[in-house]
């Protein structure tokens, strides 16, 4: 079964070719298009599940050692030998499962959501292409093929953000996403070059096997450059600016690409390169600090937004920050765990937002919503489940993954109390803004116009069924990784351990930590760390509950309070409401200075030097021509005179 892993990305590729070529040319019926697109994804998902189970049957150590499935040689040039090959190991199969699974449900949802759109076929062709590229990214067995997927998802992101390209805003947002990603991709590419220069290979297995040959400085440089790529793709400080604008695309796209899958590829990449990162503590620190900073920074921006999708976008950036915090402190499997649960609940949140927009004739501003829970019960309950999950309420998936990250941020050898504090504060903010969103959207009085009110309706089953399934996953998704202190067993962690390293099977969650020694009091070895973990867990839950409580107080009990508060802290409010003016600062510094350089080069260098040189040369020729053509008088006798004089001169020269 494992031998057929290469079929997983191939199905969406075939779906793309079919829909993109035949579907567009022959103007196929929407039903055919959607069946092809969804069944391609269904097959991929099914195959991922089958391969997952055949991988489970192997011994834990053998799972990581499954030979790569090489399809064909791709680039063979001197020392550079690159094959198109797919890797099957616990990490890539988890990613393939998440990607193909979530994509499958979002495809089904899209059939309903995009029903009336004239670009229906184009949409599904792009979406299939995206999944193909994403699966190539996560299953590639070398850096170059991974880079192909990396760029491919960037391309699809561009195409789908600008899907409604007739309007200016989506077209510009697509461009912005593409350009900002280019900055990150540059770093990523240079990192790959460095790997090749120093190790002479790009294949993951060989690179990681030879990694010990690298000097510490080189490893640090490589990992930092790779992280630059990750900040672009995964919307971290300082390259996060494109993600909020990316919400101009269709909502299922925001759900699939800009929440569940593509933006997490940076986390996956760092987890895949954990051998390199483990050798570079400086890079790990950088990753963790940027992750924590992004987590709290983006969460603070999410507090005050009114656009329902933008709140979710900032939330996504913030949650991605958590994942980077996790991989930065060395808790790679915790990062991947959060990646998975986040894909469930954030995908669901976006789909729910799409369902709300569907009900409200495309309304995005939550100030014009409210009281929807009676009219759209399925959307409300599923949305609520996702909200509870992301807020980290015990029993829901977000709790397990987020709590593991917070604990690791504190206890791991790379961790620090400060990182925990930042993470916990961001968690409180997350709980606040998510419940604010839910309360304002679904509870209270309906503030929509009468015209819109009449049309409020629950979405059709083709949209609500994916919502329900994802809601189920958001609830139970966490139970595969229950912390040991709660008496559970972290199956997820154990499954990934052969690739990502970490604890040997069965050892305690808390007991390996060095802080255990520092914090364990009274000499009861082992229990001190566990006690501490429980204490921190309780604290973070309390923080989340406080966030929810504040949201409840502000938006249900006493809706006047936030306005008064905003009045009192006007400066602070304005700054945060305007997203710290980062877009404006970037506009003024990078964008404008680039434009100025471009203008200068255009006016001064291109016009002034290159064009002028060409024009002067051409002008000289013209001038000469104008003078010399006077010789050609049409008088045969003057030509004859010229010939004679020439002949005489030649003869004189010859006989002299």
């Amino acid at each position, binding site marked *: 079964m494992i031998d057929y892993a290469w079929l997983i990305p191939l199905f969406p590729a075939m779906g793309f070719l079919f829909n993109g070529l035949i579907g567009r040319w022959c103007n196929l019926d929407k039903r055919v298009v959607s069946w092809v697109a969804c069944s391609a994804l269904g097959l991929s998902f099914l195959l991922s599940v089958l391969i997952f189970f055949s991988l489970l049957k192997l011994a834990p150590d053998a799972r990581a050692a499954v030979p790569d499935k090489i399809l064909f040689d791709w680039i063979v040039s001197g020392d550079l030998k690159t094959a198109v090959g797919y890797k099957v190991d616990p990490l890539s199969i988890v990613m393939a499962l998440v990607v193909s699974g979530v994509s499958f449900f979002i495809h089904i949802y899209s059939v309903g959501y995009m029903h009336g759109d004239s670009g229906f076929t184009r949409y599904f062709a792009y979406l299939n292409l995206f999944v193909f590229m994403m699966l190539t990214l996560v299953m590639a067995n070398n850096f170059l093929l991974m880079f192909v997927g990396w760029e491919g998802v960037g391309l699809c992101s561009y195409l789908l953000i600008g899907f409604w390209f007739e309007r200016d805003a989506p077209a510009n947002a697509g461009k912005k996403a593409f350009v900002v990603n280019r900055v990150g991709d540059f770093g990523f590419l240079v990192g790959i070059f460095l790997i090749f220069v120093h190790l002479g290979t790009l294949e993951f297995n060989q690179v990681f096997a030879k990694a010990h040959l690298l000097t510490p400085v080189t490893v640090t440089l490589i990992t930092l450059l790779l992280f630059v790529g990750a900040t672009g793709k995964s919307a971290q400080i300082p390259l996060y600016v494109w993600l909020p604008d990316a919400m101009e695309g269709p909502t299922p796209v925001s759900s699939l690409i800009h929440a569940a899958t593509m933006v997490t590829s940076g986390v996956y990449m760092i987890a895949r390169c954990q051998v390199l990162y483990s050798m570079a503590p400086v890079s790990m620190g950088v990753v963790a600090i940027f992750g924590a900073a992004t987590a709290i920074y983006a969460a603070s921006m999410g507090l005050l937004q009114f656009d329902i999708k933008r709140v979710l976008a900032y939330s996504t950036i913030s949650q991605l920050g958590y994942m980077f915090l996790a991989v930065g402190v060395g808790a790679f499997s915790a990062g991947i765990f959060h990646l998975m649960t986040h894909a469930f609940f954030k995908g669901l949140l976006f789909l729910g937002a799409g369902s709300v927009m569907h009900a409200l004739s495309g309304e995005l501003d939550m100030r014009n919503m409210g009281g929807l829970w009676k009219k759209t019960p399925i959307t409300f309950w599923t949305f609520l489940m996702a909200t509870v999950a992301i807020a980290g309420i015990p029993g829901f998936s977000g709790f397990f993954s987020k709590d593991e990250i917070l604990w690791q941020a504190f206890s791991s050898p790379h961790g620090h109390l400060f990182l925990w504090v930042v993470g916990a504060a961001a968690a409180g903010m997350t709980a606040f803004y998510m419940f604010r969103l839910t309360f304002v959207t679904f509870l209270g009085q309906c503030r929509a116009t009468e015209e819109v009110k009449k049309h409020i309706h629950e979405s059709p089953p083709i949209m609500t069924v994916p919502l329900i399934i994802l809601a189920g996953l958001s609830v139970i998704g966490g139970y595969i990784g229950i912390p040991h202190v709660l008496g559970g067993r972290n199956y997820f962690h154990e499954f990934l351990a052969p690739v990502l390293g970490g604890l040997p099977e069965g050892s305690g969650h808390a007991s390996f930590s060095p802080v255990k020694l520092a914090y364990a009091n009274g000499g009861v070895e082992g229990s001190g760390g566990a006690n501490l973990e429980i204490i921190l867990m309780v604290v973070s839950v309390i923080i989340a509950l406080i966030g929810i409580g504040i949201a409840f107080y502000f938006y249900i009990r006493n809706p006047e309070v936030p306005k008064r508060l905003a009045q009192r802290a006007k400066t602070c409010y304005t700054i945060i409401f305007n997203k710290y003016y980062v877009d404006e600062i970037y506009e003024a510094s990078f964008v404008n200075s680039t434009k100025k350089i471009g203008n200068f080069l255009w006016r001064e260098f291109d016009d002034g030097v290159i064009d002028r040189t060409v024009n002067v040369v051409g002008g000289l020729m013209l001038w000469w021509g104008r003078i010399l053509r*006077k010789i050609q008088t*049409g008088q045969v006798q003057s030509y004859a*005179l010229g010939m*004679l004089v020439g002949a005489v001169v030649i003869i004189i020269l010859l006989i002299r």
Partner: protein
Amino acid sequence: MLSSVPPFYYFLVSALIFIIGAIGVLVRRNAIVIFMCIEMMLSAVNLSFIAASHYLNSLDGVLMVFFVMTVAAAEAAVGLAILVLLYRGRGTIKADEINLLKW
């Protein structure tokens, strides 16, 4: 008898005829006269060939003269035909009035 005249005189006469022809080509207006002057230049060259051939005891020069005469005959045929057509078309065969081929 021939041998009593030094070759220098032959070449002198030849050069004089050639120069007269060349000046005629350059200064005369009538195309037929120009044409005749060209024939004169060719004849001057022929004279040099013959003289050189005689004094060098070689037939190469004579051979060359036949070629020149053949070419001159062919040229006369084509050239006169051109002149006839020119006269029909433009009503003149004055060289300075036939100056269409210019910038």
